[in-house]
């Protein structure tokens, strides 16, 4: 079924962009400021879901789907599991920020300044990278990604893909070895 997204561009793009961006920023701030790790995790989930929305707006539905199914549904459940396994009561009563927090913020601020400088100089006076219109029918984003992964004509990512699966296998084994009490 052709959803013909290209024929009907998303409505109210700026509104949804700013909404989702606000959700992401607020979520991000909550992630790094909450005492309770579960609250942080919930904030992070909100951020990730908002980001999935942004992916949809960027015509990347497959990435959005993977983001929801893997990040929000998979990795974050793992996080929540671990938070429940460890005892957070004690941690909550302690100091939340380390001694170098001021240095850390200054360093991050400097990095931010660097980024601002980079953006202003590279785009100064020139265009803001307009997103423009989609150049092809979007209906088969999934197929195209698959082709890119597989087909030699476009520079194959097959090897990288297989390495990624190997990485996951190693991660599974590593996590089990690490977390298991008795092997």
């Amino acid at each position, binding site marked *: 079924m052709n959803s013909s997204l290209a024929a009907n561009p998303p409505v109210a793009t700026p509104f949804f*962009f700013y909404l989702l*961006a606000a959700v992401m*920023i607020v979520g*991000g*701030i909550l*992630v*790094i400021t*909450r005492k309770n*790790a579960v609250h942080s*995790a919930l904030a*992070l989930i909100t*951020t990730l879901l908002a*980001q999935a929305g*942004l992916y949809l*707006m*960027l015509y990347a539905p*497959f*990435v959005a789907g*993977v*983001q929801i199914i*893997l*990040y929000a549904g998979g*990795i974050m459940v793992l*996080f929540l599991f*671990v*938070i429940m396994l*460890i*005892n*957070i009561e*004690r941690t909550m009563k302690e100091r939340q*920020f*380390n001694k170098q927090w001021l*240095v*850390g913020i200054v360093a991050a*601020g400097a*990095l931010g300044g660097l980024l601002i400088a980079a*953006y202003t100089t590279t*785009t100064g006076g020139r*265009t803001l*990278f*307009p*997103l*423009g219109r*989609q*150049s*092809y029918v979007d209906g088969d*984003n999934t197929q*195209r*990604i698959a*082709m*890119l992964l597989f087909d030699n004509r*476009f*520079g194959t990512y097959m090897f990288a893909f297989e390495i*990624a699966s190997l*990485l*996951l296998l190693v*991660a599974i084994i*590593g*996590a089990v070895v*690490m977390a298991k009490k008795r092997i």
Partner: protein
Amino acid sequence: MHAMLDISTLHYLVLGAALFLLGVIGVLTRRNVVIVLMSIELILNAVNLNLVAFSRYWQSVHGGLSALQGQVFAIFIITDAAAEAAIGLGILIAFFRNKETVNVDEVDLLKW
């Protein structure tokens, strides 16, 4: 006003940079390992956002299949994040079992 109404790639880049900075601040200042790991996820997501935004930009400039490379990279990074989270949390559990704490600045022994 025009810039407000027309969402450009730069908007996404700035959002990504903001998230990245939030993640960096989290990594540098928090003591709780779980939240440090979550901040790393924030950083990875900021990168992903940039990649997908650039992929979108490339599509409008050049079109064609190669523009989707950014999305492919994003998928690889998500894979990487999954592996990282699994291993990181595995280490965290092993650490918690031995030290009864989840604070990074108490991880100052090379063995126990």
